[in-house]
């Protein structure tokens, strides 16, 4: 009883706080602060048409590195958290097959989904989207595959290699930024121009980084899914 009262009190108070925030909110009419700078110089400094990507992969790339790390971290933790004992590992559970439609449709769709995912992260600096989105799309393909065929197993080694290599490469490119550019994770390297604005090969290393991110994210999410699926075996 007291509990419910307290909860009600809490929610009401949050309402009060938010109301105050809302009252102190005047809609913006033009860009201010760093946003203005990005809008004005984003194209020239970074060369990415998609300013969000410019912010994510260039200006605030250090955050993005953190994001990658978080996904990577989660995957790592889950992989030893949900680790199976050996006999569980070798246990084989035969799930009953799923519907014909799903199987057939997935066979048609999965390649397209992968393709789309790849497209999304390759063009991350031009169109809406980017590494994370693309990676997520790829992973969704993996989900579909698992659903269509519950008994399939994902090749763990491949995932790990993709994961590690792409991660390491991102870091290496970051370090290159120190050597050839203005600092860690600088996407504009000397002797590696911005390229023609608006084309795929533009915006310095952004497409590369984003593609790697995409692969890495895709791999990591699939990895997590894989673990979830496997952990069904745990007795």
């Amino acid at each position, binding site marked *: 009883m007291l509990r*419910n009262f307290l*909860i009600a009190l*809490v*929610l009401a108070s*949050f*309402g009060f706080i*938010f109301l105050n*925030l*809302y009252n102190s*909110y005047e*809609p*913006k*009419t*033009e*860009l201010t602060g*760093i*946003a*203005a700078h*990005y*809008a*004005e110089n*984003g*194209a020239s400094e970074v060369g990415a*048409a*998609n*300013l*969000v990507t*410019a*912010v*994510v992969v260039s200006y*605030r790339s250090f*955050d*993005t590195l*953190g*994001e990658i790390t*978080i*996904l990577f*971290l*989660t995957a790592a*933790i*889950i992989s030893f*958290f*949900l680790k199976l004992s050996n006999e569980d590992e070798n246990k084989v559970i035969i799930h009953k097959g799923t519907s014909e439609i799903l199987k057939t449709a997935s066979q048609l769709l999965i390649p397209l989904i992968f393709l789309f995912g790849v497209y999304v992260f390759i063009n991350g600096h*031009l*169109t*809406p989207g*980017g590494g*994370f989105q693309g990676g997520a799309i790829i992973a969704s393909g993996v989900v579909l595959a698992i659903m269509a065929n519950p008994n399939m197993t994902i090749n763990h080694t491949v995932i790990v290699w993709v994961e590690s290599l792409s991660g390491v490469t991102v870091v290496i490119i970051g370090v290159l930024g120190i050597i050839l550019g203005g600092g860690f994770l600088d996407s504009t390297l000397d002797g590696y121009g911005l390229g023609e604005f*608006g084309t795929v090969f533009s915006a310095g290393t952004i497409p590369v980084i984003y593609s790697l991110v995409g692969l890495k994210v895709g791999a990591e999410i699939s990895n*997590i899914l894989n*673990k*979830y699926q496997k*952990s069904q075996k*745990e007795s």
Partner: protein
Amino acid sequence: METLELGKIGLLIGFLLVIVGFWGILQQKNIIKIIVSFTILNTGINLVMVALGYIKGRTAPIIDDSVEQLANHNVINAIVDPVPQALVLTAIVIGFGVTSLLLAYAMKLFRAKKTLEINQFNDLKW
């Protein structure tokens, strides 16, 4: 009353979602539901973030023909604030990480006691 503009609507709905999220977190007994409430909470916050970046009558911060037409070559007057969107992107990813880990925990907890009632998990106390 005058029509609310999009930013305010987004803000209000965001706050609403946040409160709903908090309600679920504090009231629900089922761990899965609590985790869901967290995602609602995050969604609310993300919505608030985007809403705060919104500027009336402007387009997405992607420099293409639409921007060109909108404010002849003057990007700064054409687009909404890109920063909140970038932050939201990050926030979403973090949210994803946290949620997946929470779910893993939920599995383990269920394996431990064959229940998802959060009241059952108070081994350490006082």
